Structure formats: C-alpha cells, structure tokens
C-alpha cells in the first residue's frame, strides 16, 4: 500500500475514517516508519490541544452558574436588559459592586417590565449562514 495522505493520517488519529480505512492504515503503519513518525507528531500536537482545552480561559463569574443558584435569571434578564435598556445599563450593573442578589433583583425588574416587549420582538427568523 502506498503511504496514505497526511490528511487521512490526521483523520486516522481522530478515528474519523471508516473501519476498513482505519484497518488499512493500521496495517500500513506496521511497515512504514515515515507514517508512524507523522502519526506520532500529530498525536503530540493533539495532546497539546487537549491541555490547552483544559487549562485555558477561566470563565468570568458572570457566566458561572455556581455563583448563584438563581443565576439563570440573570442570564435571561441580561438579554432583555441589553435589548431594551441598551448596553450602558447592562455594563453599569455588571461593574458596580452590588451583590449577586441585588443584581438579580434589578435585572429581574427589567425582565418583568420588558417581557411583553421582548415577546413582541421575538418573531424575526434567524438566518444561519454556512462557513463555506
């Protein structure tokens, strides 16, 4: 068997080929040092991605559901706040030092007051585009 393309070796490492393609490559790897080296390099890169995925990007408290049991109200309300009251109100609330409970209360107030407005705005279809 000729050496598989590097693209196929990349998919092989992800186990995203058909069973028979996987088996062909496995057999080939037993006899081909060049491809074994390529696979090892890919696996090493993917281990780095795995570490990056685990260590990277702490999620800010405002998005952390464990901060408050009722945090979901914040999330739902924040959408409404942004929609009806503009980002100034939203960022004002975010950056002041009020407790989560106070924040929830204020946002809940907005949410309750603007629910009908949001509903009336909620008919626009979402157009999804393709990343071609």
């Amino acid at each position: 068997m000729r050496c598989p393309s590097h693209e196929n070796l990349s998919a092989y490492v992800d186990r995203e080929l058909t069973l028979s393609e996987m088996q062909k490559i496995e057999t080939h790897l037993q006899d081909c040092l060049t491809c074994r080296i390529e696979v090892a390099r890919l696996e090493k890169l993917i281990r780095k991605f795995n570490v990056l995925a685990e260590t990277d990007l702490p999620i800010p408290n405002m998005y952390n559901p464990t901060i408050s049991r009722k945090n979901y109200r914040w999330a739902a309300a924040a959408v409404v706040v942004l929609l009806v009251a503009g980002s100034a109100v939203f960022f004002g609330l975010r950056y002041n030092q009020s407790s989560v409970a106070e924040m929830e209360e204020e946002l809940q107030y907005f949410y309750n007051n603007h629910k009908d407005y949001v509903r009336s705005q909620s008919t626009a279809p979402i157009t999804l585009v393709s990343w071609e």
Partner: protein
Amino acid sequence: MALEERLKDHSLVQKLKAGDEDAYAQLCTEYSGKMYRLVCRLAGPEDADDLVQEALMQLYKSMGSFKGACSIGTWIYRITTNVCQDYLRKKSRRSWRHLFSLDWLSSETNKEVPSLDFEPSERAEIRDDLDKLRMAIAKLPPEQRAVLVLHDLEQLTYQEVADVLGIVVGTVKSRLFYARRKVRSMLEGGV
C-alpha cells in the same frame, strides 16, 4: 463525549419548543459560560460579552422555532458561531492582533499543566508552548480556526462540526488537516 450527554435532554427540547422561558433560562445557565469561551476562541475577547448577549438573544428569538431536528448543543454552537462569523466579517480588515491582543494571549492562560500521563520533559514543553499555541490558533484564517477550535478544543466530532458550521464532513477533515499543519509549522518556526 461531553456534548452527547446534554443532547439527550428531551424534556428540555419539548419545553423549548413550547416557548417555556424557564427552559430558556436553564439553557442560559448551562451554556453561557461555554458560549463565552467559544466566542473568545473564535473572535477574541474584546467584544465577547456583546457577542454572547447577541447569541443569547438570538437563541431566545429562535426558541419557538427550534424543532429539535438537531441537538440543543449543535443549535447553540451554531447560533454562537454564526454571531462570531458576522462579527469577523465586519472586522475583516482588522488583523488577528487586533482581535486577540498579545496581553490576552499570554495573560489568561492558567499554566498549571495537568499531571496526568505526561513525562516531565513533555510537561515542560507543553507549558512553554501554550502561549505559542494560542497565538498560532489566533493567526489561522477564521474558517480554519473555527474547525480547529470546535474539534480540537471543544471536542466535537467531525459530523457535529459539519452541522454547526453548515459544511460537509469532507471539508471539516481537510480544513482541520490544513489548520493543524499551519499550527505545527508556527510552533516549530517559533511563531
């Protein structure tokens, strides 16, 4: 697969289809952090809060029309990546340096490499490489970055990535290959 577990929540799907606001709120709780992280990875941190809010709003708007044809996870990832793509189009003249500041690329990384399965020498190498790795990902063309982030960092399958981005599996496979090759050459070339 982490995504898979969440997709099975049929009662949540039913509630969303019925326009249940509590179900929407539950969705926000569960996903807004993940959406924030995805947005930062795809489009940089500068406008991430706004983009998450935009995505949450689009989720809210489309809640009633969600038919459950795809999984909830795919639907959320799709709307979020869609918002990012619009944003990146508008910012198309800006270089990656404007989207991903050098400070951000190096400062927010928690450098504690998990001890599992690594030889000490590889651990040290990985720790040294994390900043370079993030920068290399930031430098990729947006469509390659999207595939690499969704597969290699968010750990979606090829089919899930294809569904999220509206492309075919073969395109996922080739874009991922080119993206990895570029990242690797940037790592080896010292970026």
